[in-house]
């Protein structure tokens, strides 16, 4: 495609400021990229006319010397989990058929207010439940990375469409959401940067809820700096969300100083899980060495309850989801399957409207909350969560950040790991603990698997420590110097 699609957000921003190109030009090449990449199935809804309209408005603002904000004129994609006024919003579920929100989510509004140009709504796992983007009602997304074995790889999930769009140079950045790893895991699978901020940093208002105590919006971008720029636009206190933090939002980009001398980096021994591949092991040690060379001090830390994080997560998240998804009942919006009686209408609407994984999780959630089981499962899990949080707080008394792999393996082929849900859940083994503790975390592409697929390294820090993350991640990014592009970008060669 054009050189313009290869820019970072920071470079595009500079180009727009220096009038090297207009937002309409920049948007136009991205629209053509969206159209050319439809085989990836990264979007549920393209908003190309709207994009041109917003690009024009951006150019007008700039001509008047009044750019809107830090992302004025920058084309981005938005996960179909964010309600967008007047634009179909489905969370990739059949049950939200035809739903046109009469309102705009706070995060997508913030992105609009910063001047960004929405290209469309990206595909995702249905209701953000999945780690491979294969549960979408709108079909699987293909990872732009492939090796020549004829098998399409999953982009990871649930923000799979967002990760694929950024990796395939369709969009300069994308808004995603992360409940147990839904930004970081797909970012890692697609070789891009994915950032999950502290719980409460970004408003959840207008974001289709999966698990309220875990859901956090965040950016997927091609560089750490871009993630800082984009999070700056997304974050901020929102009085419409009772769990939105009032913590001041610092200048994230300014935290990228290249200086990490003396920072203590924790290496949690419990993350060396059984059967971890040597390539992941190797990547991780390499990361440790690099940070050490840059002047940081690696330290062993212990997070003793790590192995319980996944089962804990698979109680808490389905429990909250079973309640959050009760509103999809065919009464006020979305799909309704007509029936003679009310209960039949409910049951067929929800039976047909939800896909298999969503149905399974709703039922799991209803079960763990039901009479007689609540204490044994739900309360137990919330106690484990306290212990997991305490593990982290103890560790952060000694270290500034923790370095781990992002995923236990690279992207797998579409159709694999489908028969055993628990096997699929293992995808999020490294990302779930920080989600349960509400901590900020970031993944940066750090190398290739033996097969030639991207792998990420993952940094976690204490609440509202995003600045530390950006700083360390940027240093790591520079040292890793990961410049391999997905095969899709040279697809003429395929």
């Amino acid at each position, binding site marked *: 495609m054009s050189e313009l699609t290869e820019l970072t957000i920071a470079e595009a921003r500079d180009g727009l400021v220096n009038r090297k190109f207009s937002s309409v030009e920049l948007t136009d090449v991205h629209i053509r990229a969206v159209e050319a990449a439809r085989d990836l199935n990264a979007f549920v809804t393209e908003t190309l006319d709207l994009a041109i309209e917003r690009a024009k408005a951006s150019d007008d603002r700039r001509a008047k010397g009044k750019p809107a904000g830090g992302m004025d004129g920058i084309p981005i994609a938005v996960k179909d989990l964010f309600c967008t006024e007047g634009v179909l919003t489905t969370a990739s579920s059949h049950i939200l058929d035809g739903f046109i929100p009469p309102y705009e989510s706070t995060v997508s509004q913030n992105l609009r207010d910063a001047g960004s140009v929405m290209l469309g709504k990206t595909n995702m796992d249905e209701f953000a439940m999945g780690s491979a983007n294969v549960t979408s009602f709108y079909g699987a997304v293909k990872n732009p990375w492939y090796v020549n074995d004829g098998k399409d790889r999953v982009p990871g999930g649930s923000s799979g469409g967002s990760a694929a769009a950024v990796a395939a140079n369709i969009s300069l950045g994308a808004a995603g959401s992360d409940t147990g790893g839904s930004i970081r895991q797909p970012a890692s699978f697609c070789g891009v940067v994915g950032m999950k901020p502290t719980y409460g940093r970004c408003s959840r208002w207008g974001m289709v809820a999966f698990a309220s105590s875990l859901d956090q919006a965040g950016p997927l971008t091609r560089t750490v700096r871009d993630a800082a720029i984009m999070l700056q636009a997304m974050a901020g206190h929102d009085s419409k969300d009772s769990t939105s933090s009032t913590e001041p939002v610092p200048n994230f980009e300014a935290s990228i100083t290249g200086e990490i001398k003396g920072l203590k980096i924790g290496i949690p021994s419990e993350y060396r899980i059984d059967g971890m591949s040597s390539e992941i092991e190797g990547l991780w040690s390499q990361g440790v060495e690099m940070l050490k060379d840059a002047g940081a001090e690696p330290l062993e830390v212990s997070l003793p309850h790590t192995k319980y994080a996944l089962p804990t997560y698979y109680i808490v998240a389905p429990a909250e989801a079973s309640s959050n998804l009760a509103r999809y009942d065919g009464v006020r*919006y979305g799909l309704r399957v007509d029936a003679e009686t009310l209960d039949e209408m409910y049951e067929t609407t929800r039976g047909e409207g939800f896909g298999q994984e969503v149905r399974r999780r709703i039922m799991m959630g209803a079960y763990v909350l039901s009479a007689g089981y609540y204490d044994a499962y739900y309360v137990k899990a919330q106690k484990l969560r306290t212990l997991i949080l305490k593990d982290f707080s103890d560790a952060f008394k000694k270290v500034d950040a923790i370095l781990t792999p992002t995923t236990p393996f690279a992207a797998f082929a579409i159709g694999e790991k489908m028969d055993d849900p628990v096997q699929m859940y293992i995808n999020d083994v490294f990302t779930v603990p920080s989600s349960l503790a509400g901590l900020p975390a970031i993944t940066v592409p750090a190398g290739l698997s033996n097969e030639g697929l991207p792998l990420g390294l993952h940094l976690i820090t204490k609440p509202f420590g995003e600045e530390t993350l950006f700083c360390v991640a940027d240093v790591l990014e520079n040292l890793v110097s990961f410049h391999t592009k997905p095969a899709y970008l040279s697809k003429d060669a395929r």
Partner: protein
Amino acid sequence: MTYLIQGRTNDWEVVIGLEVHAQIISDAKLFSGAATSFGAEPNSQVSLVDAGMPGMLPVINEFCIQQAVRTGLGLDAKINLHSVFERKNYFYPDLPQGYQISQYLHPIVGEGMVRLDMPDGTREIGVERLHMEQDAGKSIHDQDPNRTFIDLNRSGVALMEIVSKPDLRSPEEAGAYLRKLRAIVQYLGTCDGNMEQGSLRCDANVSVRPSGSDELRTRAEIKNINSVRFVMQAIEYEAERQVDVYETGGSVVQETRLYDPDRGETRSMRSKEDAHDYRYFPDPDLLPIDLTPDFVEEIKKNLPELPDAKKVRFISEYGVTESDAGILVAEQETAKYFEEVALGRDAKLAANWVIHELFGVLNKVGKGISDSPIVADKLGNLVDLISNNVISSRIAKDVFEEMVAKGKDPGVIVEEKGLKQITDAGEIEIAVNNVIADNADQVKKFREGNQKLVGWFVGQVMKKTQGKANPQMVNELLLEKLKG
């Protein structure tokens, strides 16, 4: 007096607990900024939050917390500084989120007490708890043959659920409890108590047991009863039904029942199979409510005088009887009206006129005291006219009727109709002399010993004076003259 149901084998006692849902007086809803007023256009007072739109989140109305605490203090109850909102999960078309945000394990108000004045003495009824929750919308079943219509105007309105202990023992006590609770929330300004509009709704848990036993048997819950009278009728019917079930060898099942006022009976609403499992858990969209002692103290300082305290004061300050005081404080409006009438006047006379004459009229026309055809100020003037001997009590009743009919000032009525009492001894003497002169036979009978005739003579004199003569003076003069 113990309320007992006489069965074939033995006497039965009824055990009642009431759950009252009281709509909190507030401008906006519990978790949204939509309005709460009654009778608005369908679905107009509905925000995106109240409609359960995807991604919508609750933010609590602080005033509703204050109102709940105020009510708790009014019930002499423990205020829990830490309370938690949980989700009560169930499907119903007027419950847009698929769950009701309510309080469960940690309600904002704990144990309290309501005092009842029953004919045979005071009864103390325990309050188990008071918690805050959202109201549901309204299902309308009679507009379409195949469909139920849903109006979400009430969805999300703040409610207090006030749960009594199973301390009530008769329909009368249940009625008294409900009236007293309504009075308290009205005094506090936390609920308007309007049962017709549904701002106060009552569920009754009813069970029976052999008299003298202290077991708690299976109870039936009668849902959503919307008047005090119906609550009493429903309990009476239900208790008798249960006695009948036991006495015919059956057993009472735990179930929800509905009271049908047209037929005067309760009937089963849901079968046991679809027993509920509400799957309560703390609402992750909200944080716990943590109150400071200062917050509670500030509300306490500003509590109004409540019925019990007011009653004691009315007895000591106005010298009214205990039962009159009870009647006067039963509703805040009545108490206020009475105090306006009584202020600086003969309070007993004032109480008498409010309770007997005014209430009589109000009952007849079916109005409340706030719509009284006679404002307190004018009734006060009437009391003045009586106290100052301007008119007799007898004439006062005519004046009162005229006031009701025309809304005029009593002074004006007396003036226009010339109803002023005759207190001029000379004028009364002429009338007395005339009556004696005109009724020689009767005078004779009186003098022969028929003392009762004095009443007849008084009547004659009053007739001659169109009832205006001061009755006491007439009496005295007549006796003097008749005895000759």
